[in-house]
C-alpha cells in the first residue's frame, strides 16, 4: 500500500531521516515509537508529503507521490491524518469541520456529507455536538472529532501523529478506544505514539526509531518481551 524507498529528510544541515526504506501493507497497524527528535513524526509527515523528502521515493498504491507532477491533493484525500494538537477549525461548527472537505473536494453532496457526519458522530458518541464550536469541547472530544473529520473523507489509510500526547491523562482512554475500534474494522493505520499499551495491544508491527533510523522492528509481543537492539532495550527500560 505504502512503499518507502531510501527516504532522507534534512532541515538545513540537520539530517532527520537517514535513508529509510519501509513497506506498509493494507490492514496493517504500524506503531512507530522512539525518543523525541528521533524523526518519527517527520517520517509520518513525509507519508502524505506535509514534509517534502530531501531524497527517496514514496509510492502509494502504485503512484509515486514524490513525483512533482502528481496531484498531491488527490492522494491526500485518501490518507487521513490526525494531529497532536487536533487542529480543528475554530471558525466553524463541528458539522462544518467534518463536511467541508468531502463537499469541497466533490466527494459528497452537502446532504450526503451531513448524513455521514451524523453517523460518524454517533459512532464516537458526540452526535449532540454537531452545532457546537471546537472551543466548547474538551481535548478528548476535540481529538475524537478530528478522527471523525479525517474518516469523513473515507481514507484508505489513517496517519496518527501523537494523537494523545496533548491530552489530559483522563482523556487518553476515550481517544484510544476510538482508535482501537477503527483498528478492529480493518483500517490501515500508522501511529506515532508514546502509548506503549496501545502499541502492544493494537499494533500489528512496532517500529523503533532513533537518530533518523529504524533501529528495530518486530511484532509487538517480540518487540516488548525480547528487544534485540541495545538502544531499544535502554528506551524500553525507561518507559515501561
Amino acid at each position: 500500500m505504502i512503499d518507502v524507498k531510501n527516504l532522507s529528510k534534512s532541515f538545513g544541515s540537520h539530517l532527520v531521516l537517514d535513508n529509510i526504506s519501509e513497506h506498509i501493507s493494507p490492514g496493517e497497524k504500524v506503531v512507530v515509537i522512539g525518543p523525541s527528535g528521533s524523526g518519527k513524526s517527520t517520517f509520518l509527515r513525509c507519508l502524505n508529503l506535509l514534509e517534502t523528502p530531501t531524497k527517496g521515493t514514496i509510492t502509494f498504491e502504485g503512484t509515486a507521490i514524490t513525483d512533482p507532477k502528481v496531484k498531491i491533493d488527490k492522494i491526500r484525500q485518501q490518507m487521513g491524518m490526525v494531529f497532536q494538537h487536533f487542529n480543528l477549525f475554530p471558525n466553524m461548527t463541528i458539522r462544518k469541520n467534518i463536511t467541508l472537505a468531502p463537499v469541497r473536494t466533490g466527494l459528497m453532496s452537502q446532504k450526503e456529507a451531513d448524513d455521514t457526519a451524523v453517523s460518524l458522530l454517533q459512532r464516537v458518541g458526540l452526535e449532540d455536538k454537531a452545532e457546537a464550536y471546537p472551543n466548547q469541547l474538551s481535548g478528548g472530544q476535540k481529538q475524537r472529532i478530528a478522527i471523525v473529520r479525517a474518516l469523513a473523507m473515507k481514507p484508505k489509510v489513517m496517519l496518527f501523529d501523537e494523537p494523545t500526547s496533548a491530552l489530559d491523562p483522563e482523556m487518553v482512554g476515550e481517544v484510544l478506544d476510538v482508535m482501537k475500534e477503527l483498528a478492529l474494522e480493518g483500517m490501515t493505520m500508522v501511529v506515532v505514539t508514546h502509548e506503549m499499551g496501545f502499541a502492544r495491544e493494537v499494533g500489528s508491527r512496532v517500529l523503533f526509531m532513533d537518530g533518523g533510523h529504524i533501529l528495530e522492528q518486530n511484532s509487538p509481543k517480540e518487540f516488548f518481551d525480547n528487544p534485540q537492539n541495545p538502544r531499544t532495550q535502554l528506551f524500553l527500560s525507561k518507559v515501561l
Partner: protein
Amino acid sequence: MTIDIPLIAWLERMGPRLSNAFLEGGRWKLYLQGLGVTLELTVVALIFGVLLGLVVAMIRTAHDQQRLGHRNIILGVMNALCNVYTTVIRGTPMLVQLYIWTFVIFPSQRNKVLVGFIGLGVNSGAYVAEIIRGGLMSVDQGQTEAGRSLGLNYFDTMRFIVIPQAFKNILPSLGNEFITLFKDTSLVQAIGGAEMLYYASTIGGRTFDYMPPLIGIAMMYLAIVIIFTWLQGRLERRLRESDRR
C-alpha cells in the same frame, strides 16, 4: 467679574471671525464639500489599497509556503515585483510619491482628485499588503496542514480556513490604516485636489484669517477619527465575543 471681561471681549472679537470663516456666503457648504471629497478619497483609496494589498499578500505568502523543490518561476518573479513595490512605497515619503504621480507620471491629468485616488491607493496597498501578510502568517500553521491533509487545495484552504481566522487579527491594524489614510488625504491639497484642507486654506487666504478655518477642519478630522475608533472598538469586542461561544 474681572475674569469674565477678557473672555467676553475675546468672544466679541471671535464672533465676526467665525462668521466670516464659516457662514459668510454659505462657506460652510465648501467645508462639507471638502469633507465629502476627503471621505471619498479615503474610502476609494482604502478599497483600492485592500484589493492591491490582498493580491500582493497572497503572492508573497504563496511564494513563502511553496514546497521545497517545487519552486514556481512565475511566482518567484511576481514575488520579486511585490517586494520591490512594498520596499519602494514604504521607503519614500507619501508627498514625494504624490508629486511623482502628478508631475512625472500624469502631468496632463487635470483631475487632481483622480491622481490622489491612485497615489493614496498605491501607497495604502503596500501597507495593507504587509498587514494582511502578517495576519495570514499569524494563523497557526497546523490549520493549513489540517486543511491540506484532508485533500483541500491551497485556495480552498486559504478561503475557508486561513483567511476567516486571519481577518480577526487583521481588523485592528486595518482600522489604524484607515485612520492614517483618512488624515493623509490632506496631502492631496498639495497637488491641487479640492479636499477639506484645500477649501480651508483657500478660505483662510481669502479672508486673511487662517485660524478659524484650520482649527475648524482640525476639529472635523478629530471628530471623525474619534467616531471611527469607537466603532472599531465595538466591532472588535463583538468579534472577540464570538471566540467565547
